């Protein structure tokens, strides 16, 4: 290597200061709003995601093979649990049909077109996850070509994951519910089977991994272990999607309302496949 050593010049310091000002400006804009992709950016993103999908295939197969191998030791125990669950499925199916019929009768009687819990499904694979900690974004391999639209809800088998924030033709970005974004508040229902309370997910703590639910009066009773679902209020998330379980309860500094620590049911460190939900009233 034929290298010329030059002493760092004063103009480099000016360039760095200028760049720092740009970084501050860009970050302050990015924090306030989600940037939308233009046509060129969509094209670049779709191209990279398309190539990535090809490279992922052997890695994904290998990863699945390893997972399958390690899960073999639990197969016997899982099989017993599944057998007992299968017996319950028939009665649940019958109950489900009956409930659906009741809902459609009520809809007819009350002249309602859609209820908050109705949605369509679309499965997708996660193709990359943001390497930077705070953006909390995933990219999935389905886009507007597949009927994905901004604001759609994303879940996996264990619960709510996030919502679609950016859509290009063949890929989309998902903003996770663990983001500390003021535009990302979610209305939730805390239920212990008999009583329902409505609150708002206000923040996520990276230190303990809890979602913070606020807006519940100190006079109301919430128990550790109560389940937390989406309430359907606010027009984005359908109702009845599991978010997590109440882990601990503290009161705010004024002793007026509760801050409820909710452990998310989804494992945000291991998301490979997701399902996008489309509320039928969005059609």
């Amino acid at each position, binding site marked *: *290597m*034929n*290298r010329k*050593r*030059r*002493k*760092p010049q004063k103009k*480099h310091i000016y*360039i*760095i200061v200028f*760049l*720092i000002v*740009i*970084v*501050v400006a*860009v*970050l*302050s804009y*990015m*924090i306030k709003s*989600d*940037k939308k*992709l233009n046509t060129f*950016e969509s094209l*670049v*993103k779709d191209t*990279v*995601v398309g*190539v*990535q999908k090809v*490279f*992922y295939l052997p*890695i*994904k197969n290998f*990863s699945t093979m390893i*997972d399958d191998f390690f899960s073999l030791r639990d197969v016997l125990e899982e099989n017993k649990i599944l057998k007992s669950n299968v017996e319950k499925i028939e009665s649940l199916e019958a109950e489900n049909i009956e409930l659906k019929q009741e809902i459609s009768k009520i809809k007819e009687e009350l002249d309602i077109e859609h209820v908050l819990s109705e949605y369509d499904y679309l499965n997708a694979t*996660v*193709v*990359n*996850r*943001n*390497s*930077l*900690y*705070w*953006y909390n*974004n995933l*990219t999935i391999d389905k886009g507007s070509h597949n009927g994905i639209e901004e604001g759609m809800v994303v879940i996996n088998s264990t619960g709510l994951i996030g919502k679609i*924030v*950016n859509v290009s033709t063949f890929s989309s*970005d998902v903003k996770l519910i663990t983001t*500390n974004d003021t535009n990302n508040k979610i209305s939730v229902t805390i239920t212990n089977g008999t009583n329902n309370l409505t609150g708002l997910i206000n*923040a996520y703590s*990276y*230190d303990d991994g809890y979602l913070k639910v606020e807006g519940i009066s100190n006079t109301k009773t919430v128990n550790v272990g109560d389940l937390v679902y989406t309430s359907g209020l606010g027009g984005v998330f359908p109702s009845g999607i599991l978010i997590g379980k109440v882990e601990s309860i503290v009161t705010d500094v004024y002793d007026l309302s509760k801050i409820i620590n909710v452990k998310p049911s989804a*494992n945000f*460190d*291991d*998301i*490979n496949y997701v399902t996008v939900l489309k509320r039928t009233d969005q059609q």
Partner: protein
Amino acid sequence: MIALSIIVLLISLLIQGIMSNYLGYTYLDLSIFSTIYVLIALLILNPYFENKKKYFLILIIFGLIMDIVYTNTFILNVCLFIIVYYFSKSFHFFFPYNWITISVSNLLSIFLYHIISFLFLNILKYDVYTFSNLLKILSHSILMTIIYTNIIYTIVVFVKQKFQLKEVK
């Protein structure tokens, strides 16, 4: 040399996605595989560019791709990459290029990238993530930064010598 550089950077770009999604999060919830692979490759390729205009052009293009594909931002990564480039350049003003100094400078560069982002995010918005989270990110990026730096450095030096490639002019 320019073809080798672009191939190395494209592979780094793909590895960025693969590592962040699969290996980084799938096994034992460890993210020790996460680092900024594209930035590492860019810093290693720096001394092979005599023509710094071409180097800056490549740095800007890959910074923009990082912005579009991985962070959904605009020119943020371009600016951070340039700042880190100047840091790396200043570091190598005092230390020669070899696998040890490149490992150290790349590690410090990755730290600098994360620290700048952390500082500005916390200045602009309170409680985005805590200092302990920053330490976790830094500590988790050590292993892969050193490994990837050495892999790419070895490949670049080997291919350059084998095919007697000339520096980019």
